[in-house]
């Protein structure tokens, strides 16, 4: 197919056509659910159905235009054919005025000699210089765009379709391809119709000469049993119970009388014509059945046997006339009985019932093939039927379909060829070009081998072919809708000759149908495989899948283990999440649906449900399928979650152990911290006691003293609370925290220890640090670990040089807490390893401090890193996301 403006060489007067000004629009999808081979098939069936109803050529033209209108939605179209003088003439049209037809009649981009014609598309007639002369006619008729679709038979243009549009029209490949499919079917039908009409005309011309001006009638009379003289009309004597009146010259009915062996003993003149013989001499005494096609002989013999037994047999079979036209005969075979009722002869009356097109076996066969394709019959069956349909139509020829399969060749169908030959053919063709196969495959053109005995290509297959009685082979490539070679269709003949035009057309039509069958089969196969693949994938996926409407109604589901669902499928399909799930969960789903519908991104969330008295954990992932369908993929995370919880529990234990160890280490310092307020309380209380003994008691001093007692008591209480928090195994409690406050608390706790260790502390806490979301105890633990680690690193350093610097600063969306020391630093290559468990340079503890600190920080969606300072010592930096910085949740899995 060519878009106008492409290869203009063959169509010089339309070479200037160009649609460059019309950028292509997206392909129309019509209907959107069908793949291209399916749509083509639908159109083929429609054409076949429409043509099957036609009675003559005029009907064909009308049916063609109707099909165009139905399949392409084109309301205005016309159908033209070259007349014998090579002038394009309107044969039928829809929606065109007589004036217009007159104005443009005769115009054609092609001549009867044009070969390889392709559709020509004119998206906008005003931009097409070669059509300028017709612009007034177009304007009058309100035609803004049009298409020329050639009707091609045996490579030659015989006519065209025209499609007309009211406004400029961008053609998509699909509609042009469908138009070409219709054109091919119609061209074939037109050619056959013409052959038929020509044959009928010759019948009509011959009829008066053979049938005595239509007045001759046959009258069957019952002669007396004793009458032996031959009748002047040559009818043998006999006893007939039936009397018939038939005008022979118009209905072409032919009469034969057979003996009880089924041999012809009389044929009337119409019968002689049908059989293509001048005189009955060469027919008489031959078996009637031999005159029929090989496949039909059984039918004939059966009918003869039935009549011989006294019954009346009736059958309908096709038989070719000498001019090549296949006719469909309705045959009644009845017994001729003598006076005693014994059957003496048989009468066969053949009535031509092949009213043009109607009961045409070929047309019907073609339609049957198309229907088989459409209903998805196995490819081998379709191709076998196709071969039969073609073989039925041309007596004696045998057909084969070879399929290109990857690099190899395999048999499509060859129902009438011998098994031996087929085996040789497929075996040989698979290897190298042999027979007509190589020729067909290479140039993609029909190959006619008129004499297999002398053709060089047939050297290797020759003996096998000749042994099977094959003398000539005509083949043509089977092309896909994309014009790739799918295989070949071959017709074998038992005499060495070339094909008739009709036979070539048949081969062409067969290849076309075979192409449609294979295309369709492959697209179905591809679909089936992808469906199988999808099903296999679905089977393999343990996840539950729910197809949901945008309103949250369960439409469909894929669940391997329905028992594990909260509610069985039959109880939730057709219902909404709100009816089925707990309120809070349904809300979560609805929010996710809404987000997935607007963002087009997968929406994930986790939840837990109590099912069968245990808590089960799930993750739902919601994706949008189309504007009002969602897919909800639910994964059971319970096992993973339990494993995670177990790990978290172990971490929790270790973290607690770490804190206990820290506090054990710090017990001296802590005792000191705690004893300070107690000293103050005790001293104040005893002082107060004495103040009371005085007379008069100094009330003001007493009040001040008691205030101090209270303050110190509170101070002691605070320390005890902190200790208890650090010592107890509490669950994670995420709150917005002021990092500076956490830092101060840690320094308070360690103050006396740091004093004892003679650590100089410098703090640089940035004011107004936004809160982080975290667990106070956990973050205290991290800082405690970092501070103690820094102290340990400086234990061997001169006291005057010991300096611990604690800084907090906002760093992008994080708070950075840095603890710098001036100690021994971290050995090369150990910057990461220091966070591994049980890596320690400390004398005390298990070496868990940094490992636990890292897991805590990570659980807060943060990170922790170590680096050596440029001069001396190391700095540990801990980054925690700001509570309002987009990090919504802190997975509190570590403790």
């Amino acid at each position, binding site marked *: 197919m060519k878009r106008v403006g492409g290869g203009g060489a063959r169509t010089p007067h339309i070479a200037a056509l160009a649609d460059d000004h019309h950028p292509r629009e997206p392909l129309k999808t019509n209907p959107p659910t069908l793949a291209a081979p399916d749509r083509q098939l639908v159109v083929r069936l429609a054409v076949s159905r429409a043509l099957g109803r036609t009675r003559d050529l005029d009907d064909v033209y009308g049916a063609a235009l109707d099909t165009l209108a139905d399949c392409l939605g084109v309301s205005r179209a016309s159908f033209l054919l070259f007349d014998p003088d090579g002038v394009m003439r309107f044969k039928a049209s829809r929606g065109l005025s007589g004036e217009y037809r007159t104005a443009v009649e005769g115009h054609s981009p092609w001549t009867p000699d044009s070969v390889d014609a392709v559709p020509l598309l004119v998206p906008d007639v005003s931009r097409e210089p070669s059509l300028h002369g017709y612009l007034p006619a177009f304007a009058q008729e309100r035609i803004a765009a049009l298409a020329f679709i050639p009707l091609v038979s045996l490579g030659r243009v015989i006519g065209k379709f025209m499609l007309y549009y009211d406004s400029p029209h961008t053609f998509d490949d699909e509609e042009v391809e469908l138009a070409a499919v219709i054109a091919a079917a119609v061209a074939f039908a037109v050619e056959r119709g013409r052959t038929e009409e020509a044959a009928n005309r010759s019948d009509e011309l011959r009829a008066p000469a053979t049938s005595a001006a239509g007045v001759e009638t046959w009258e069957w009379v019952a002669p007396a049993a004793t009458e032996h003289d031959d009748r002047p009309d040559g009818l043998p004597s006999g006893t007939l119970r039936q009397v018939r009146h038939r005008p022979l010259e118009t209905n072409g009915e032919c009469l034969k009388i057979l003996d009880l062996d089924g041999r012809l003993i009389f044929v009337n003149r119409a019968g002689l014509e049908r059989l293509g013989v001048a005189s009955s001499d060469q027919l008489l005494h031959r078996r009637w059945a031999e005159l029929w096609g090989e496949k039909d002989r059984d039918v004939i013999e059966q009918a003869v046997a039935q009549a011989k037994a006294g019954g009346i047999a009736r059958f309908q079979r096709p038989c070719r006339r000498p001019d090549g036209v296949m006719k469909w005969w309705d045959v009644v075979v009845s017994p001729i009985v003598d006076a005693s009722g014994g059957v003496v002869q048989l009468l066969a009356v053949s009535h031509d019932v092949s009213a043009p097109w109607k009961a045409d076996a070929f047309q019907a066969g073609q339609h049957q093939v198309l229907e088989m394709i459409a209903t998805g019959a196995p490819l081998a069956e379709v191709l076998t039927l196709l071969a039969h349909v073609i073989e039925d139509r041309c007596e004696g020829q045998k057909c084969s379909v070879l399929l290109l399969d990857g690099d190899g060749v395999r048999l499509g169908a060859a129902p009438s060829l011998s098994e031996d030959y087929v085996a040789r053919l497929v075996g040989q063709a698979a290897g190298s070009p042999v027979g007509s196969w190589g020729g067909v495959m290479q140039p993609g053109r029909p190959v006619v081998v008129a004499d297999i005995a002398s053709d060089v290509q047939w050297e290797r297959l020759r003996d096998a072919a000749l042994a099977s009685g094959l003398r000539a082979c005509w083949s043509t490539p089977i092309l896909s809708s994309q014009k790739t070679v799918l295989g070949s269709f071959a017709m074998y003949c038992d005499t060495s000759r070339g094909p008739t035009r009709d036979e070539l057309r048949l081969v062409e039509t067969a290849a076309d149908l075979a192409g449609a069958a294979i295309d369709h089969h492959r697209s179905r196969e591809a679909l089936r495989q992808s469906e199988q693949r999808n099903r296999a994938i679905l089977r393999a996926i343990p996840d539950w899948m729910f197809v949901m409407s945008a309103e949250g109604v369960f439409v469909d589901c894929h669940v391997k283990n329905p028992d594990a669902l909260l509610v069985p499928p039959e109880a939730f399909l057709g219902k909404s999440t709100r009816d089925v799930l707990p309120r809070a969960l349904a809300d979560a789903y609805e929010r996710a649906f809404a987000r997935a519908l607007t963002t087009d991104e997968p929406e994930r969330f986790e939840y837990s449900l109590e099912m069968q008295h245990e808590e089960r954990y799930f993750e739902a992932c919601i994706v949008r399928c189309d504007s009002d369908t969602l897919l909800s993929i639910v994964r059971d995370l319970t096992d993973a979650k339990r494993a995670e919880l177990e790990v978290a529990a172990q971490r929790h234990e270790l973290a607690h152990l770490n804190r206990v160890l820290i506090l054990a280490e710090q017990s001296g310092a802590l*005792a000191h911290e*705690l004893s300070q307020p107690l000293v103050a309380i005790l001293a104040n209380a005893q002082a107060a006691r004495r103040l009371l003994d005085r007379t008069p008691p100094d009330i003001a001093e007493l009040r001040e003293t008691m205030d101090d007692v209270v303050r110190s008591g509170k101070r002691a209480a605070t320390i005890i609370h902190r200790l208890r928090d650090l010592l107890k195994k509490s669950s994670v409690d995420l709150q917005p925290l002021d990092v500076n406050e956490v830092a101060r608390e840690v320094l308070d706790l360690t103050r006396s220890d740091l004093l004892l260790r003679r650590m100089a502390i410098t703090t640089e806490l940035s004011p107004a640090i936004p809160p982080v979301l975290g667990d106070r105890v956990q973050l205290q633990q991290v800082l405690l670990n970092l501070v103690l680690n820094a102290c340990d690193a400086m234990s061997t350093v001169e006291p005057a040089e010991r300096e611990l610097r604690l800084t907090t600063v906002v760093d992008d969306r994080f708070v950075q807490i840095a603890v710098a020391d001036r100690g021994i630093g971290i050995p090369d290559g150990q910057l990461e390893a220091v966070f591994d468990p049980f890596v320690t340079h400390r004398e005390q503890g298990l070496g868990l401090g940094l490992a636990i600190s890292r897991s805590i920080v990570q659980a807060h969606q943060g990170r922790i890193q170590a680096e050596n300072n440029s001069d001396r010592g190391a700095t540990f930096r801990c980054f925690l996301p700001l509570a309002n910085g987009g990090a919504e949740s802190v997975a509190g899995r570590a403790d």
Partner: protein
Amino acid sequence: MTREDRLNLAIVDDDEDVRLALRRLLRSLGHDVQLFASAEAYEDRPAAVDCLIVDLRLPGLNGFELRDRLRVRGCLIPIVFITGDGGPSPADATAHADTPSLAKPFSDSDLLAAIARAVSVSAGLQ
């Protein structure tokens, strides 16, 4: 309390609550009390007192160091150490056998007894 019983005392402790409470207690017992927040602060303005009450754990110079520096300078002022973490280590205890130390928290009688002991030991040495 007689005038002779009235002692002039100094407290060196970095914890203000402790300082103020001890002063109130000792004053209620009739003694004069001066307060210092660190060893350095006392060294800067060494007051002639009957007894020093010194927290062992101090920022900068700790209690032992303050005593050693006083002794090196020939100042034999009686000293009572107060400690928050169970007293000095065994090594410290041996090295500073002449200096009584008092574990926090303590009662008024303990404190007075320790002061009395320090003063008497000091007097004995002198």
